[in-house]
């Protein structure tokens, strides 16, 4: 096979793998906005903390493995998110301009969490062990088992999340709230509880993303901002609150990113995201699915 074609396919595969991690993080950011109308600026910090939790487990117990890490960290993130909603966000909700107020508060929270990480873990980058070792070579392409596992986990999470929204009672409540909050309240849905769950769920999703991406990069106290910015652009591009739009956007942008990185080099990745964002602003500020404004 032509070497160019092979390389391009390799780039696409790598894009799809990153896309899947971005997608679940994007869904988390989007869903929390769609349902509880909160834009969480501490999202990147939760990403970092998810990875730090995994690092703590690996550093403390030599026999630790990934399934166990997921089993412990994801629920922990869920409860951390729920707690955050209760303590930090909830009482602001019925104020005027509370959407902007919650943005400010979550910015404060991000600052708190980042600096807490700095105080506890120091500024040095922490590594996580790889998810899996080795690689497979289907049809002559190289695909590391780690990437494959990432893809499978992410797709599973997405499918599970879709089923959760459409099939379960709480999922249907979330849909009802996203369509009419007061309507949901007057049919007797305990909306505050559902907001907590939503926040928890979104945090669990970003925590999952953190664990999945950390083996590829390193963990630093402020390391959550770069992925947060990417997810931010993805969500803006897809249309804030639109899960389908977020999915499309994640795949389109991540594959583009891996092309940029391959052809122009890694320094151009952030400017590329910036250009996409400007493009979105200029031509379609409401996003792919047009749910803004």
């Amino acid at each position, binding site marked *: 096979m032509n070497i160019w074609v092979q390389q391009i396919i390799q780039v696409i595969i790598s894009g799809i793998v990153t896309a899947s991690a971005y997608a679940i993080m994007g869904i988390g950011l989007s869903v929390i906005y769609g349902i509880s109308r909160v834009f969480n600026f501490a999202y990147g910090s939760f990403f970092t903390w998810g990875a730090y939790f995994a690092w703590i487990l690996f550093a403390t117990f030599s026999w630790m493995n990934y399934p166990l890490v997921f089993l412990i960290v994801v629920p922990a993130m869920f409860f951390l998110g729920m707690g955050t909603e209760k303590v930090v966000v909830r009482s602001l909700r019925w104020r005027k301009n509370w959407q902007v107020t919650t943005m400010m508060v979550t910015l404060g929270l991000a600052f708190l969490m980042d600096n807490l990480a700095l105080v506890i873990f120091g500024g040095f980058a922490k590594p996580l062990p790889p998810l899996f070792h080795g690689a497979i070579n289907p049809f002559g392409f190289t695909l590391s088992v780690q990437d494959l596992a990432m893809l499978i986990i992410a797709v599973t999470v997405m499918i599970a999340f879709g089923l959760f929204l459409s099939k379960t009672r709480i999922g*249907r409540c979330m849909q009802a709230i996203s*369509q009419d909050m*007061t*309507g*949901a309240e*007057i*049919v*007797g849905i*305990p909306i505050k509880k559902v907001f907590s769950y939503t926040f928890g769920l979104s945090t669990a999703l970003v925590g999952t993303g953190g664990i999945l991406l950390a083996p590829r990069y390193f963990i630093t106290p402020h390391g959550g901002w770069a992925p947060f910015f990417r997810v931010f652009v993805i969500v803006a591009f897809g249309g804030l609150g639109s899960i389908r739009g977020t999915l499309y956007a994640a795949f389109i942008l991540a594959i583009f990113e891996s092309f940029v990185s391959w052809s122009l080099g890694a320094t151009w990745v952030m400017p590329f995201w910036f250009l996409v964002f400007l493009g979105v602003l200029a031509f379609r500020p409401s996003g792919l699915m047009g749910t803004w404004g």
Partner: protein
Amino acid sequence: MLELKNINTYYGEFHAIRDISFKVNQGDFFLVVGPNGHGKSTLLKTICGLLRTASGQIVFNTAEITRAATDKIVEMGLVYVAEERHLFPQMTVLDNLKLGAYNTNARAKEQESLEYVFHLFPQLSEFKNRYAATLSGGEARMLTLGRGIMSCAKLLAIDEPSFGLAPILRNEVFDKINEINSSGMTVLLVEQNVNQVVDFADRICLIEDGCIVFDGPREEALLNEHLKDVFLGGSYR
């Protein structure tokens, strides 16, 4: 069945409800009238837990619900039907109704309630697979009432059901509410179009500037000069 004792509610600094007390008896059709912006809707929202009362006590079926959350109040059978419809636009009529039966008590009787709602509003069963967003004003109003019934309501607190409806549809809605009441449901209705509902009411209460000006049975209300002046006499409707 429902008793309010010295309720006060504020909108920011604005004292919207001043020291209101009244009783709604089982099976009653209790009509609250009064000019707009004088606190009627605020009163209903306070009762249903959407707004917090600053002082006073609300008792529903011997249980105190003064500062209870809306979902708890709905579960007890006090259901609010809003003036703005608050339907779930991207869900079907049937799904909207099913979400009405969210609380535990209602879920057990979901099928039964659904049949009753479809019996009461045959149009809804025709449209049950249409999205709520596509309904006309009258149909949407029926759906809000149906959704309220689905919650296994013992008392329906209905806020201005005639709002935004053409005259021809208003009578239909009021007839339905009367029918619901006749089947044993207690109804607490807030309304502007007094003339069209006054015949159904058992008890009438007039609120002006957040205070109760008059509260009594219909017969008495029809004799009250002030009430006549303000609402029944110089009517434009």
